[in-house]
């Protein structure tokens, strides 16, 4: 589960072969001494911000607010963490909650107060059961509250209030979990600074980008040169995001779904549910196109977020790093959605690995991998969309989650086996050493994605039916 490689750093360890004749689409400007020196001057910073702002204009609808916050943080690096908290609070109240569709501003301070109390309790009572297992307690407590709320009578005001609170609490759940993990550190940040990492203004999903306060302390730029490097790398990454965005919008979608007329995967899946006939090769084409589109989308999103984080002076690792080069399932999992994987490692893998089955090396790794990639993964996704539970009730929603549970089990088994089989890289032929493993890994994730839909929940029978279509077995 901790997987093969921390993405952005892999290049440092085994310098990748350059593109023919050493050409790189985006040059490593942070390694050019004149550029690095210029980026530390006031005109250099202004120019950096101007270019970054222009790229944000392409990439982000709220580019104005973002560039203003980034400019303030660039101007006052000594107050970076405090400004991060202020910026995040302003962002949450002024922009982010407005765009989420449910304006639950009243619930937001209540959630913060509860989080502050939990943080204080975890710090104050280190030796209590809660102090020793703060994240497990938090997650169990949240699950219990959701279960109780699902039993409240539908016509009661209390039910509405409970679900409104849980909706906001669920959004911040994993951010609070990182704070609780940090509560045990000797040099932990005070709660006021922890708040800056709760859906920070640079963007995030419910899986914290970029982890929590402890990680930010480690990656923060501590001098002008480090800040310049972080910002130049941020600029490069945002450029990548814009290029990929253009590629997706202007080339991939028109060619694949327009010129080649490959149907959208969601559309084809609906046809499969309605038992409408379509050729098996169309199913494959649509599945592969959907897989590639997902890769592009997550890369664009992740690059944009990490670029803003770097521009703020934190040299964070990339979220997605060359996933199509992965030679093992564990490596792909690490390269595809790094911050989600890290969340599962920190909250599920490490606690399990260091507590259970300590005398059996392989079993220990297997159990910890299942705790993270199977249980943790399914837990995260089940409680991410509370509307299903609210509408169907807890147990019916859980029963309807069978496809994703199956996905998690197969994924965890794949990662565990991949880790146990891990061997040192040997120099073999390109076909055996590179092509075959990469092809197998991509095929595994591509086929498994039939069961891994998270935006809409399909019954497992429908997923198996589509799988049968792929192999021309469905009537």
């Amino acid at each position, binding site marked *: 589960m*901790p*997987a*093969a*490689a*921390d993405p*952005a*750093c*892999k290049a*440092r*360890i*085994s310098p990748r072969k350059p593109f023919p004749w050493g050409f790189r689409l985006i040059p490593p400007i942070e390694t050019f001494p004149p550029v690095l020196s210029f980026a530390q001057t006031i005109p250099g910073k202004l120019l950096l911000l101007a270019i970054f702002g222009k790229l944000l204009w392409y990439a982000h609808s709220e580019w104005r607010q973002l560039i203003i916050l980034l400019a303030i943080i660039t101007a006052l690096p000594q107050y970076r963490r405090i400004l991060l908290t202020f910026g995040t609070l302003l962002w949450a109240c002024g922009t982010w909650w407005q765009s989420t569709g449910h304006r639950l501003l009243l619930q937001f301070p209540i959630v913060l107060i509860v989080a502050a109390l939990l943080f204080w309790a975890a710090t104050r009572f280190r030796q209590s059961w809660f102090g020793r297992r703060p994240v497990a307690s938090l997650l169990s407590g949240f699950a219990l509250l959701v279960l109780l709320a699902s039993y409240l009578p539908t016509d009661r005001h209390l039910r509405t209030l409970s679900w409104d609170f849980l909706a906001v609490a669920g959004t911040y759940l994993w951010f609070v979990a990182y704070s609780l*993990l940090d509560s*045990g*550190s000797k040099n932990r940040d005070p709660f006021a600074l922890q708040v800056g990492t709760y859906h920070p203004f640079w963007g995030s999903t419910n899986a914290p980008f970029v982890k929590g306060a*402890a990680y930010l302390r*480690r*990656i923060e730029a501590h001098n002008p040169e480090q800040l310049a490097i972080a910002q130049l790398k941020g600029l490069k990454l945002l450029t990548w995001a814009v290029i990929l965005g253009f590629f997706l919008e202007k080339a991939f979608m028109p060619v694949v779904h327009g010129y080649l007329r490959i149907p959208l995967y969601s559309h084809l899946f609906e046809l499969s549910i309605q038992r409408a006939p379509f050729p098996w090769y169309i199913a494959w084409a649509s599945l592969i196109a959907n897989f590639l589109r997902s890769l592009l989308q997550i890369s664009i999103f992740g690059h944009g977020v990490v670029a803003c984080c770097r521009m703020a002076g934190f040299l964070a*690792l990339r979220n997605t790093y060359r996933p199509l080069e992965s030679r093992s399932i*564990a490596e792909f999992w*690490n390269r595809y959605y790094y911050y989600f994987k*890290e969340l599962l*490692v920190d909250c599920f893998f*490490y*606690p399990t*690995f*260091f*507590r259970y089955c*300590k005398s059996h*090396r392989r079993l220990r*790794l297997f159990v910890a991998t299942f705790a993270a990639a199977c249980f943790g993964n399914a837990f995260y996704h089940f409680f991410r969309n509370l509307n299903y539970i609210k509408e169907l009730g807890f147990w019916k929603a859980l029963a309807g989650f069978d496809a994703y549970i199956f996905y998690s089990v197969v994924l965890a088994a794949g990662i565990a086996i991949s*880790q146990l089989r*891990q061997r*040192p890289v040997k120099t073999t032929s390109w076909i055996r050493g590179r092509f075959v493993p990469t092809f197998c890994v991509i095929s595994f994730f591509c086929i498994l994605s039939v069961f891994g839909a998270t935006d809409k929940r399909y019954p497992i029978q429908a997923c198996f039916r589509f799988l049968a279509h792929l192999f021309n077995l469905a009537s």
Partner: protein
Amino acid sequence: MERKILIREFIEGLLARKEDTQPFSDEASLFVSGRLQSVDAIELAVFLEEAFAVDFASTGFDQEMIDTVDAISALVEGRSTRE
């Protein structure tokens, strides 16, 4: 001192497997710098459990605790002092 040498030797072995033969100081970051990765963190932690009886179940685990040779040494020393 001998403890530090053992730790260094183990880390050198981990780095050598990645064909990384660059020298590193006792204060040099291993994980945040990206020279070692999370899978190595597990191997290093298991080594510390077996060689020095460090119990991460009671202390909790964070990569920061084992990011430098000095940090690892302090972690092991702290455990010995408590004993």
